[in-house]
């Protein structure tokens, strides 16, 4: 059972990685600031580094959602297994649909479902659920969206250049924002590595402690840290191209200044939330930023249909993974045979979704039509410089 949980936890870490590549790298890929493959490689390295940097293990697996701990309920590896199953399957479904959704909320959902079946309703701390999952899900995109909107407006206002005499548009020269995007998106990737790999380390460590192979209160062993770090890095490098496509071009068109504003808002929101104690989901912040920046730039439209689908996905994250978690907990509760059935069914479901994904392959080559966008930008630059040359001649 312990080995099974560890394997599943590492797979969850992997799905977490490829699910969240988009948060950091979708906009720089969309604007052509970084080449797609370089971008995921950079994100993978930063995730790897981030995972090694932070090894402080959380005291509780569920962050207080379930009344666990010394005076509460003892969470067994069975429940963790069921919870992880719910989270992994939901991550796979949302990936197949190309929806950015929070991996931690999926994990919370799975654990809640498993705990309700395995222990009972009294094990759930509903106030914490409201505070840690439901309210942030509403406010994260709102805050990030608003900030990104203001930033995008400012960025365009500050860099729009008109000839003082003729009133013609001068060359805008906003290419510099691409360089900035590299830095802001790298910050997001690094922050992701420090936060998310840690969750899996915490789970594995707690399972090891529960199994009696590790002394309580000790930190994660080195192989656990290394395994988690590599799982999340490989996941990131595999790149959730479907989600990158949604975030990079599905919600709205992204231009460098706009992408820079969105990434800066995302990075600020994540850092502020993780240091001031109101946890916001990276995915939800990033999606909100992209939408907000899309609203802020003139001449862009936000595809609200896609945004609605994403919101619907968030709405279902908790219940859907809870149901899978609960079903798995039921199966596991029946004994060894149940565990085997659950493991086989889970593997089959993951394989099925992987095969289904092959039908419409989305890879680095077609995730975002960067080439086209790049040509468009270059073309426009040329046109503008042609426009400005005559005016310069006149001035001379």
């Amino acid at each position: 059972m312990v080995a099974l949980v560890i394997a599943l936890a590492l797979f969850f870490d992997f799905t977490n990685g490829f699910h969240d590549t988009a948060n950091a790298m979708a906009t720089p890929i969309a604007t052509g600031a970084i080449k797609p493959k370089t971008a995921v490689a950079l994100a993978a390295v930063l995730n790897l580094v981030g995972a090694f940097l932070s090894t402080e293990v959380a005291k509780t697996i569920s962050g207080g959602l379930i009344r666990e701990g010394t005076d509460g309920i003892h969470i067994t590896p069975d429940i963790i297994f069921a919870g992880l199953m719910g989270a992994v399957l939901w991550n796979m479904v949302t990936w197949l649909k190309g929806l950015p959704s929070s991996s931690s909320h999926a994990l919370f959902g799975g654990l809640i479902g498993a705990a309700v079946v395995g222990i009972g309703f009294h094990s759930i701390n509903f106030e914490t659920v409201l505070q840690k999952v439901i309210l942030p899900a509403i406010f994260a995109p709102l805050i990030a969206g608003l900030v990104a909107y203001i930033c995008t407006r400012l960025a365009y206002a500050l860099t729009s250049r008109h000839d003082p005499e003729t009133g013609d548009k001068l060359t805008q020269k906003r290419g510099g924002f691409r360089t900035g995007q590299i830095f802001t998106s790298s910050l997001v990737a690094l922050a992701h590595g420090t936060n998310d790999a840690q969750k899996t380390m915490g789970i594995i460590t707690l399972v090891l402690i529960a199994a009696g192979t590790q002394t309580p209160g000790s930190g994660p062993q080195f192989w656990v840290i290394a395994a988690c770090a590599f799982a999340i890095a490989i996941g990131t490098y595999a790149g959730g191209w479907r989600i990158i496509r949604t975030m990079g071009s599905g919600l709205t068109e992204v231009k460098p200044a706009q992408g820079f504003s969105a990434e800066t808002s995302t990075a600020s929101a994540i850092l502020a939330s993780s240091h001031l104690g109101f946890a916001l989901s990276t995915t939800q912040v990033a999606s909100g930023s992209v939408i907000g920046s899309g609203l802020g730039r003139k001449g862009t439209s936000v595809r609200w249909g896609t945004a609605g689908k994403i919101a619907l996905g968030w709405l279902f994250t908790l219940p859907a993974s809870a149901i899978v978690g609960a079903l798995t907990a039921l199966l596991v509760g029946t004994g060894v045979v149940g565990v085997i059935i659950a493991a086989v069914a889970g593997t089959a479901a993951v394989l099925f979704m992987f095969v289904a994904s092959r039908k419409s392959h989305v890879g680095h080559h077609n995730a975002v039509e960067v080439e086209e966008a790049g040509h468009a930008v270059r073309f426009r630059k040329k046109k503008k410089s042609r426009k400005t040359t005559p005016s310069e001649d006149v001035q001379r």
Partner: protein
Amino acid sequence: MKWLELLQVAGVTLFSAVTLVVLYSLGVRLTAIAGDAQQKSPGLMRSLAYVCFAICGAAVLFGIYLIVPYFGK
């Protein structure tokens, strides 16, 4: 409910993101001005732009400082 924390997070996010974007935009703008043909003092503009970028760089470093727990505690 942690409404105060929520407000705080929103405020800090707004402040830091706006500051960074304004500075970087100024940097981009000044670089563009420095590149203009009729600009009299491109050197000054360019160095001002670099100051803006340098402050942004410092902000990124501060971000890394916040992310890495080794510095924090």
